[in-house]
């Protein structure tokens, strides 16, 4: 992994980010059936920093809000509360200003579904060229073609693939086209939302290797979202564990995997089926992720936590520094 770049300030800073969705029934239904408004707190106060050239991974199960955090970071959603700083600049006001394009050139995203992330009616050349023309980076047609060809080559595809359509490629190849598109504007920060979850294992290996190579060559900073802890362990420098919209533990990779402190992190790590430990006996934890519309009071993990106390039921633990990591747990701090 690339050595952490000790800068005066980190590239990406998220502070108390929150996003609430109104998922109430339509107004008429609410009035007639006297239903209350329903709010979904998808992200409920998340803070982290990412130094330049490093990878922060966010892991969690369904409903934890990691995909929403990803979309907040690229400006697809506006936060209900909290702020995002990119290279010292307030990102969300930049996204709304007339200079939004300058910010958008530097931040890009790679999506989970290789089949839905490329427009099926556009050629590969058009797909990759779009960010370039949109930002006015290249106006000459011949130069555009050369640039698209070199982008394709950098992800292991060829210039001959330019006139083809997405359906002519496999899932892994499509994901590589997505990466080429994301790199077109030479961004500094890439948000990757489960980029390999839909891919076969051997294809996943190819894509992860390419991503690591590109990071090393270009000094990219990644936010890597995944539910697969083994993949996360391979690609990340630091890992944040999310549960029901909140960060419960944030630590560097080695510390988190060697010595997980939060009961949820421990449970997650224990739940992963291990390949080389065949026949191992485990005690799986009971319970399921609660309905995000109706989260438990206090610490949202308390119904499933073997160490829950009355304090856990009533008071929400803040994310605090503790022995080099950050953790939100009454039992630990």
């Amino acid at each position, binding site marked *: *992994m690339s050595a952490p770049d000790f800068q005066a300030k980190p590239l990406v800073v998220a502070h108390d980010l929150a996003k609430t969705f109104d998922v109430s029934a339509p107004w008429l239904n609410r009035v007639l059936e006297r239903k209350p408004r329903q709010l979904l707190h998808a992200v409920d106060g998340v803070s982290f920093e990412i130094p330049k050239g490093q990878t922060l991974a966010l892991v969690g*199960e*369904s409903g934890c809000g990691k995909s929403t955090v990803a979309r907040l970071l690229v400006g697809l959603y506006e936060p209900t509360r909290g702020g995002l700083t990119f290279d010292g600049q307030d990102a969300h006001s930049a996204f709304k200003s007339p200079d939004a394009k300058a910010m958008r050139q530097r931040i890009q995203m790679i999506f989970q579904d290789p089949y839905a992330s490329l427009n099926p009616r556009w050629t590969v050349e058009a797909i990759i060229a779009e960010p370039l023309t949109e930002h006015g980076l290249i106006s000459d047609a011949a130069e555009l073609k050369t640039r698209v060809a070199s982008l394709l080559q950098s992800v292991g595809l060829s210039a001959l693939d330019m006139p083809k359509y997405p359906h002519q490629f*496999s*899932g*892994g*190849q499509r994901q590589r086209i997505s990466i080429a598109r994301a790199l077109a504007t030479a961004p500094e920060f890439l948000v990757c939302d489960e980029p390999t979850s839909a891919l*076969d*294992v*051997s*294809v*996943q*290996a*190819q894509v*992860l*290797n390419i991503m*690591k190579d590109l990071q090393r060559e270009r000094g990219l900073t990644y936010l890597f979202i995944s*539910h697969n*802890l*083994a*993949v996360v*362990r*391979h690609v990340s420098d630091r890992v944040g564990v999310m549960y029901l919209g909140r960060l419960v533990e944030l630590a560097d990779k080695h510390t988190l*995997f060697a010595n997980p402190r939060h009961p949820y992190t421990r*449970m*997650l*790590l*224990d*739940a*992963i*089926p*291990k*390949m*080389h*430990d*065949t*026949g*191992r006996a*485990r005690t*799986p*934890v*009971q319970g*399921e*992720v609660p309905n995000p519309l109706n989260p438990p009071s206090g610490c949202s993990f308390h119904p499933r936590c073997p160490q829950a106390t009355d304090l856990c039921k009533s008071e929400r633990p803040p994310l605090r520094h503790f022995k080099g990591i950050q953790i939100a747990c009454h039992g630990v701090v």
Partner: protein
Amino acid sequence: MSLLQVKNLVVEFPNRHGTLRALDDISFDIAPGEILGVVGESGAGKSLTGASIIGLLEPPGRVASGQIVLEGQRIDQLNADQMRHIRGRKIGAIFQDPLTSLNPLYTIGRQLTETILAHLPVTPQEARRRAIDLLKDTGISAAEERIDHYPHQFSGGMRQRVVIALALAAEPRLIVADEPTTALDVSIQAQIISLLKKVCKDRGAAVMLITHDMGVIAETCDRVAVMYAGRIAEIGPVHQVINHPSHPYTAGLMASIPDMDSDRERLNQIDGAMPRLNAIPSGCAFNPRCPQVFERCRQERPELGSAGGTRAACWLHQGVAS
């Protein structure tokens, strides 16, 4: 005697360009009470194998040749009515998506008792009692009340437990489970895997577990078959296949999985991709991508033969290169 024997099974899909061979001469056995894993990447044919055994192959797909023998009886050539009696009574099925596996319009009690009554000679009251016991066994609390609930009143993990109960309802000898945990969260996966192991061992039912997740295979199965391009590349005890694979594909696959215990800079990658069904190379299907390929691999197709602690279809382990 084996519970299930698949001998030289060939499944084809005729279409306007010709005939595609989706499964090409597959043979394996499952012993009573054993858990066999079938693992492979997309397009390898593992789901098709399961579908052929249950008799749910979608037309125009059909069994072109070969035999499927269950408890000494051939089941690949039965008509729809006869197959219906086998399904449920002798073979149970668990599919990937618990949402669509249950009928949303009926209570789970009704679905369970319907299956039990269709296959076992019991009274409706007895069927209901058995259903409640099944629900308790699969870890659903307050079974006496929840038996009258509808599927939408259960969460994803709970629904998959109900599906397992449904598969076991008529006391089958073999369960075919196609990606039973893929759609579930990691923590629920662990619960469902251990549940499946426990109830099957308790009832002496054999399981054919189809998945792409090697971790699940490692924790659950006794033996595993690795499939590639419609053929079995390697089959053997799970510890052997994972830690001492004989076939280069298996070795490459194991090495490309990021794993919790080791720290590697690069994952091993197998260059290229699995060939499409209409472009399978001659000889060994893996030969264009194999790091240890030699001339015979391109000419002749290898059959499964013993290789170290497993059986592998690879010329490296069989005879002398001619």
